[in-house]
């Protein structure tokens, strides 16, 4: 599960270019990740120029719900 910080994401698309699963998409306002298709390779995290992506663990996910 990749977490997006929408306050940091600048919609530049660099993460999409390295994604092997093609599970990310963008519109003019938001970045989307299809977590079912995501292979959790985390390549996107390392290229984000603003550090908007992070690896979310399951405990955090449960808290968010």
């Amino acid at each position, binding site marked *: 599960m990749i977490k997006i910080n929408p306050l940091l994401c*600048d919609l*530049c*698309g*660099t993460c*999409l*270019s*390295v*994604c*092997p699963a*093609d599970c990310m*998409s*963008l*519109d*003019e306002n938001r970045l989307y990740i299809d977590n079912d298709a995501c292979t959790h390779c985390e*390549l996107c995290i*390392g*290229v*984000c*120029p*603003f*550090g908007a992506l992070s690896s979310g663990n399951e405990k955090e996910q449960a808290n968010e719900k």
Partner: protein
Amino acid sequence: MKSNYDVVVVGAGPAGSMAARHAAEQGASVVLLERDREIGVPVRCAEATALNGLSKYTEIKESWITNTVSKIRLVAPNEKYVDITLPVDGIVLNRRLFDHDLAAYAAMQGVEVYTKANVTKVIFKEGKLPVVQVTHIGVAKEITAKIVIAADGVESRIARCAGIHTQTKYYDIEPCAQMFLEGVDIVKERIEFYFGTELAPGGYVWVFPKSDSSANVGLGYNASISNGKTALQLLEEFVHRKYPNAKAMTTVAGGVPVANTLKEITADNLMIVGDAARQVNPMSGGGILSGMAAGKMAGRVAAKAIGRGDYSKKALDEYKKVWDKEVGSEHRKYYRIKDYTVKMTDKDFNDLAGMLSPIPPEKMSLLRLFKAAVKNKPSLVFDVIKLFSNIA
């Protein structure tokens, strides 16, 4: 927006607008779809290019040129530098006006232009024309195209819809951050590059003046040799140290593919251009002119294909052939130089600057610089000479 066109161009950057314009000029019906609400905004680019190069592809408006530069300064990690007098006029563009006007030139050739038009998917089925699914100002629509030209930038998703592998390796991507700074102490006619493994591992910082006291300042590093800091953190460090009194008026993220061109830039009913096709100079990261070149080539081939009624990969491969011959082969040479420069250590940069800094700028050339940089690699020296003899 109609439900079918000869050519659908996805993305209104320089490559997309050039493709649209040239396809329409030769008689095709063309729609140009831009996801953002305004063409040319945000500016995800360092904005510098060469005037003579640009004039090959378009008539030039004075309003695009915010500054003309005649000198380059290359700064090593120990602050030693090499000054070079540019052999051609360098210009710093206003990409906001530039991108808008390139799309406007296309519109004047009859291209329909839509912003806030987000292409979510293109359905390619054998024996059928592709169907472009687009959301235009919140309304979902489908457009049937004879040819789709994917100019969708670094993310390059449209090509993936046709099964083309566009995923870029870490070694071939540069995360970037860029600021528009006011109140910087600079020399207006000199662009500057800063190198160093702490500063920008495998990449560089650029300082491109836009006036006496403002500049486009940015940074890109090679993702495969990251030092754990984001592009923004690296840039903030540089700016705080170098220009402590500067005001950042804009801060933008970006990514530059520094790869060889994709193996496949055509498929049945599809051509890929610009950053989406990885048509960026892999050494410098410059992509304005090569994107425009590719757009023009693809637009013309598209119109010809429409005229003949043959949109097969075989017909569209004429674009690939022209690209490979005119630009792609040069990019492969630049890629080999990149392979070498990415590995340069701070000591290498310092030694090089120490060796070359006594040479007066008017006697210094990029050719001389690169020959010195790759002196231990005879095969690369040969590449460098070939490259520069092509350019000159």
